[in-house]
């Protein structure tokens, strides 16, 4: 599939690039950001997929999360797709911030008029990895998934529905009835996150289920932190290291 490079900036010794392509799943043009560490010039590197939250594009993460230094140090490629199909001209897609554009929720829609384009689950778990592996120096056996907010949910469901596919997982959503190879989940939650206080996020439920199901989770409540990219930035390092432990093993 043809990739068009949209931008390339040298960063932390490697390159932060953005590409565009025609997506067969989503039936529109999609952009994704990819960070290539210095190690990628000579070796195949593992891939860390990052799923952003509501209203984000591929830009927010690469400009605000501060992941490049840690990725360069650990020799990991980071791929951050957009959060939904764009420009599909579906009625009502721009009506609310948490539904439609910028709110793919990383699921495959089952109803009209959404189901033709809104197939972010398949995009993230199928088309995108194939594209990345075909065009970049990746180690196809080593990939992990992570995300923030809606993306955290997305990461979890992708991991739980594809046992063994992802080597490390992050999520802020309820676990399902997972049965597969052992997970090791790290979750950070800002204590001052307005969504938490509004009970839109329910980590206790996740923890309860995981405790019962013996799914190993370490959940950290970080005092003073909110929902923003400042929060993401602060703990990005810990998360990349957590992934590196498995990706580089």
């Amino acid at each position, binding site marked *: 599939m043809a990739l068009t490079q949209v931008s390339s900036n040298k960063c932390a010794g490697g390159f932060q690039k953005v590409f565009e392509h025609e997506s067969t799943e989503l039936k529109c043009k999609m952009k994704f950001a990819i960070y290539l560490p210095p190690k990628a010039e000579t070796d195949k590197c593992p891939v860390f997929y990052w799923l952003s939250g509501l209203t984000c594009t591929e830009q927010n993460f690469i400009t605000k999360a501060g992941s490049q230094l840690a990725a360069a140090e650990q020799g990991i490629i980071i791929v951050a797709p957009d959060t939904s199909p764009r420009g599909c001209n579906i009625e009502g897609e721009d009506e609310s911030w948490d539904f439609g554009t910028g709110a793919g929720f990383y699921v495959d829609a089952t109803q009209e008029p959404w189901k033709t384009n809104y197939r972010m689950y398949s995009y993230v778990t199928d088309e995108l990895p194939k594209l990345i592996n075909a065009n970049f120096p990746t180690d196809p056996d080593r990939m992990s998934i992570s995300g923030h907010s809606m993306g955290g949910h997305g990461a979890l469901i992708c991991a739980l529905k594809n046992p063994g596919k992802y080597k490390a997982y992050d999520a802020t959503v309820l676990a399902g009835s997972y049965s597969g190879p052992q997970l090791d989940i790290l979750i950070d939650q800002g204590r001052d996150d307005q969504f938490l206080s509004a009970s839109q996020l329910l980590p206790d439920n996740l923890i309860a289920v995981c405790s019962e199901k013996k799914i190993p*989770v370490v959940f950290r409540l970080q005092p003073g932190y909110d929902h923003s990219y400042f929060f993401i930035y602060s703990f990005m390092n810990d998360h990349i290291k957590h992934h590196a432990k498995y990706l580089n093993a």
Partner: protein
Amino acid sequence: MDLTGGRLNVIAEEGEQQDFSRQSSTMEAYRAVPEPGERTFQRFSVNTNESLRFEPCEDSCPSPTGAEDGHDDVFDKGEYEDEIISIRNQLQGKVTEMENFAGHLEEIFLTVEENFGRREQHLEQHYNDVLQTLSQRYDERASGLQEEKKAKLESLYSQLLVCGQALDASKELIETAQEIYRCQDKRLFLKTVMPTIKRVEEFAKEDVDLALSTGLEFSTPIADLSDVKTMMDSINIVPAPSAPVINPQLPNSATQTSLHVCWSLFSDDTVEYYELYYRPVLEDVSAENTFAPQESKIKVKETHCTVTDLLPNAQYELWVTATNTTGISPASEKALYMTVPSPPVIKQRECSSCPEAALIRWESGNTNPVDSYTVELSETGTGGAKSNITESIVAVPTCQCMIQLQAGRHYLIFVRAVNVGGPSDRSEPISISTTGTFFYLLEDTAHPCLSMSEDGFTIFYGDEELPITAMAFEDNTFTRCVAILGDLIPVRGRHYWEVEVDDETEFRVGVAYKDADRDSYLGANNSSWCMRHIRTPSRHKYEFLHNGWSPDLRITAHPLRIGVALDYDRGTLSFFNANLEQHLHTFHCHFQNYVHPCFSLDNPGALTLHNGIAAPDYAFI
């Protein structure tokens, strides 16, 4: 290029005159045809008259560092360093020996001088005595002779006088008689003739003793020189010997209970046997010690003796006399010898190790102090077979030693005690493995309610309530928190250990400074960091405590085996679920001093320490 009988282009001109045949056997190992790209070296043979001829190299010169030509072993410092060190040690030992020997030589020199001085003196005196006696006799004889002469002369003189008198008297008589005879006066003649004839008759009756009163010969009595003879003879008699010279103690000649003593005689005396005296040198030399140590004696024919049945690490005073038929020599100087100490005893439970080093502690094994200790280590293969690699650390002043080691090996470590007599036997060894960090628990820090398994790695907090009075608190024990510290080796590197617990155990595990407050709980102060597990009926709770504060964390899978990773350089203390390889939490702190692993049980239960484990890769990412 064919070098056997061929010509080298470079020195073609000379080549015409010289013989290039290489059939001579002096050029050993010379390759006939060098491979392309291979180097040949400049060589010249020393044994033939071609010795000054050089062949240039085929290719470039050999590399100055040897790196490119593969002959690296010349620059391999490793073995040579060891050799150099051992040679240096040998030389140092030799220097000490020589210094001792020089000192001893001085002593010998002085003794020889003394001995011969004495012999000279003795001889002089001897001969002087003889001479004196002889001259005395001479004087006596001479004066005796004089006396005799005088006596004889006197008697002869008196005889002479008498004769003279008699002569005079006869002369007078004769004159008188002649006068009378010549007298013309007949009357006078008749008057005097008769008395005169009477006088002459009387006189004639007198026998003139013409015998000499004394003999003309002198008597020559036989001089009684027997005593002089005895004296002369005694010069030839062997005198009593001179004092021997006792040697200073030779290194490595003593054992724990015996001393090997040598001495020498520096004169030509004949000796029948020697007697070696010895007595222990007691420390207590106070005046009230009237009981002097007993001296013992050994009779020996040789000039050396091994004295046995002695005490270890003890000083003895020794001296020796030599005896022959004439008598006993004076005693030699007293020498001080020392028996070798008893071997030390390594305190197995007070030793600790990590991949780079081991800390060994021991008891002296001797009641009196020794000079120093020597620590010996040898590497053993994994099968327990001893290799020949042995290292010694000498002059260790105290009963502990930190030894640098290499990671992932097995060692046997021995200690010897050393005094002037030499080194003791090896102690019993301790086996050290430099896989992971290994330590025992510090029993003297344990809260009285804590008991320990026999192997020292499991602690129990029993159900029984001990009354406060029954609890023996010491200075170092925890008083509230039922805790104990571990004896981690003081090396600022990376250390990893694991703690095994069960589902119910309420514990605190982490690290603390040695001076952490014994009256407070682990994690409640700023000198301790720990992971705490609290069990409620519905769930597990976890805290990571330092200075009383903990982050808010949930852990869904209860760890039954906790990995603790301490990194001094990075200033981190991390906790893991070792069974799942899951990271739980990391403290970041610059540890000012050395820290000790700490463990406590908040409720009755038990936990087991596992160490000597190589840190897993994820522990120190």
